């Protein structure tokens, strides 16, 4: 018989070991699922996780996919460290895309040195604005930010649909729900010619490094961590908890908005109803897999980006639905949450002793 019993204090070993074990278990189970779908499991796993990297420009494709995931994941890491549960990064991403994209569509001929920075700024502000709503509801009315931020994502999505089927619809777009293509001055600069690797791919790790400095070296980061770990002790010490909740929400919203505008001004090139394959939600997994550490989010973002590439490859090479991406991400989160149990608990083999067990239940 096994028993789960609490450790005295969290295990540092399992804090890092848990994601590695979770990744291993996920690959194992994904292989089993591939086998159940009639594939040779090893070949399928190879096609899903390794082959995409070996393709021509495979690493570039990875970087492009990883950029938004890392950027949003970094913001969410900071936010979750503060014990503020922003689940609506997808909506903040969308609002960033709408705000910055709106500028691009309104002033397509503005000079590049004004237009693109303006789009980035508006993207950040749009994301912040969308995150400010749950922040206000939380600090003013103590409304649960998980629900409010999640629901605002749907509103943002519908707003986008309205805009690209209504006022911002491309008149020359054959009726498709999409805006006009952004002008060349309103496009995210490519930094490695011929690969599509854009400014965001460089910005993401840079922002991760800055976030790491803020979190670990600054007074603000210290306060965010204290509020996250021990809100009562933070209030006792005189911290303004509401202001810190606002800060965490605005940082994560701003970064999601930035990722949104970089994405539509880069790889997507216009506003459409499908600007994101769920980056905002996958970034939640990025944050947890990266142990809520901005540097960890870089590595986790690369893995999740790979799962997107692998989904495409599985669809093309194996004829599998690209839902395998979602399945892989879901299983990964499942195992990650499960393995995180090992951080605070240990599993111990015990001889059956009914009396002791009964006490345990009654307690």
């Amino acid at each position, binding site marked *: 018989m096994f028993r789960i019993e609490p450790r005295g*204090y*969290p295990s540092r070993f399992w804090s890092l070991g848990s994601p590695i074990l979770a990744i291993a278990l996920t690959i194992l189970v994904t292989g089993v699922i591939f086998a159940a779908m009639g594939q040779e499991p090893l070949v399928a796993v190879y096609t899903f996780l390794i082959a995409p990297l070996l393709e021509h420009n495979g690493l570039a494709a990875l970087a492009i996919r990883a950029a938004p995931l890392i950027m949003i994941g970094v913001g969410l890491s900071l936010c979750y460290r503060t014990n503020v549960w922003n689940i609506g990064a997808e909506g903040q991403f969308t609002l960033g895309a709408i705000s910055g994209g709106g500028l691009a569509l309104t002033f397509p001929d503005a000079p590049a040195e004004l237009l693109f920075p303006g789009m980035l700024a508006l993207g950040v502000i749009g994301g912040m604005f969308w995150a400010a709503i749950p922040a206000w509801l939380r600090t003013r009315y103590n409304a649960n930010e998980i629900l409010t931020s999640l629901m605002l994502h749907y509103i943002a999505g519908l707003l986008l649909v309205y805009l690209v089927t209504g006022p911002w619809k491309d008149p020359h777009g054959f009726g498709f729900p999409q805006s006009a293509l952004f002008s060349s001055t309103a496009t995210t600069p490519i930094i490695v010619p011929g690969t599509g690797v854009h400014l965001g791919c460089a910005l993401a790790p840079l922002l991760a490094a800055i976030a790491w400095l803020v979190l670990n*070296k*600054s*007074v*603000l980061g*210290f*306060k965010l*961590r*204290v509020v996250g*770990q*021990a809100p*009562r*002790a933070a*209030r*006792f*010490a*005189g*911290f*303004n908890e509401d202001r810190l909740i606002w800060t965490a929400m605005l940082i994560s919203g701003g970064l999601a908005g930035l990722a949104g505008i970089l994405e539509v001004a880069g790889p997507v090139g216009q506003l459409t109803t499908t600007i994101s394959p769920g980056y905002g939600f996958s970034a939640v997994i990025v944050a947890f897999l990266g142990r809520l550490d901005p540097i960890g989010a870089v590595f986790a973002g690369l893995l999740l980006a790979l799962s997107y590439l692998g989904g495409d490859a599985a669809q093309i090479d194996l004829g599998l639905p690209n839902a395998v991406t979602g399945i892989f991400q879901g299983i990964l989160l499942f195992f990650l949450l499960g393995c995180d149990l090992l951080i605070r608990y240990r599993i111990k083999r015990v001889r059956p002793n009914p*009396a*002791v067990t*009964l*006490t345990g239940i*009654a*307690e």
Partner: protein
Amino acid sequence: MIAVAVPDREGGVALALHRVSKSFDGRKVLDDARFAVRWGEVHALLGENGAGKSTIMNVATGVYIADTGVTEIDGVATRIASPIEASRHGIGMVHQHFRLVNRFTVAENILLAAGPEAGIRNLDQAARLVAAKGSEVGLGIDPAARVCDLSVAERQRVEILKVLILGARIVILDEPTAVLSDQEATSLLRFTRGLADTGHAVVLITHKLREVVGHSDRVTVMRGGRTVLADCPTTGLDEAELARQMIGERVAPLRHLEAHPGAPRLVVRDLTVARADGGKGVDGLSLELRGGEILGIAGVGGNGQQQLADCLIGLATASRGEIQLMGRPVVAASVAARRGGGLRMIPSDRFASGLIGDMSVAENLAMTHLAGRYSRWKGFLARGRMRRDARAAITTFNIAGATPERRARLLSGGNAQKLLLSREVDSELTVLVAHSPTRGLDVKACQFVHGAIQDSVAAGAACLLISDDLEEILSLSTRIAVMSRGRLVGEFPAREATAEKLGLLMMNHA
């Protein structure tokens, strides 16, 4: 009331515990204690907080396993290793903190807690049983009501019914009246009498003299984990003597601070603070505190002390009244603003409010002075200065086992408290609120904490000492007040205070 089927053993000893000892982490909470209750009686178990009353009853019900000692039921030595075994032997306990699922109905709770043991198979049966048992013993309750919609008194009825449905003949009630209004308490005490009249053995854990003298047949008094008075009939009992037994002989304070009161530093007028459950925690309390004095607030825990402390530092909002700190009104001010005025606090829950276990000693020390002393260039943390200051504090306060980098949770209770003191008792201190500052500490650590408080007051600070430890109140305070039901019910200079006088005030008003 219809008689319940209880074997006719009137007068015989129902439950007896002999020579029971129990330690937690090396600290003895029961030391050779004993207790016995007879069939057909209400037996009061009296003692201060921490006297071991609840612990010995938790041993009787199998929640704790005693280190040594014998439990006898009906004169037969019995090993009780779990609450379920206790219930099979007819022992049931109603705990102070209810164990009900608030979102479930009464019947669902009964099914959940008593289902298999009492042979209840479905909800209908549970509902019928609740109704039947309720009318039998006179505790009517709607089986279909959700627990979250019930009043505290009604929830208590559900707990009692649960125990009776499980077949308890020995019924233990842990401070049952602490959560009730006067009328509810009277009705509950009448119910316990009825229970005893039908042959049950009833144990009433309490610290209220009124309940001992008026509503029980016999009393056992515990103090410091020992039984100091066993099996004493309550008729003709002297209340003062009982209070003395409960509180014991107090050692004279070694060093009494002479009060040299200066200007008022903390003035509280007509303060009312709500409790989390909506009741009144602090109810129209007023006090005045001057520099150079220690105002001791005695009282049984749960009489609004926590709400008072929270409201003074700014963690809880006052619904009425005012607070002045150094002549400035601060009732609406932030914690930071109050700290800026020199208010400091030692909270009763060291690790929930004061310190953060998973952060380092240096970080814990720097927490309250981040804005000025510990931030440098562009808002970065001054780690070097934090480390140096921490090292100095560790030396000055002799915090054993501490290094600036060590996590606070790895310190022992006494050393963690020293860490907290070294942060709170700083050069800007004007008013110190110390709430149970030595709870759970050993003698040496106690002395250190008391010394630090007295030193700061001798240097001109004002101290409000809130404690349910009478010895601490008597040995430190220059002035003493008793807190009961959210207000101060008596106040006198320390030299006029005696343990007996305080004990009577605490227990009669409680």
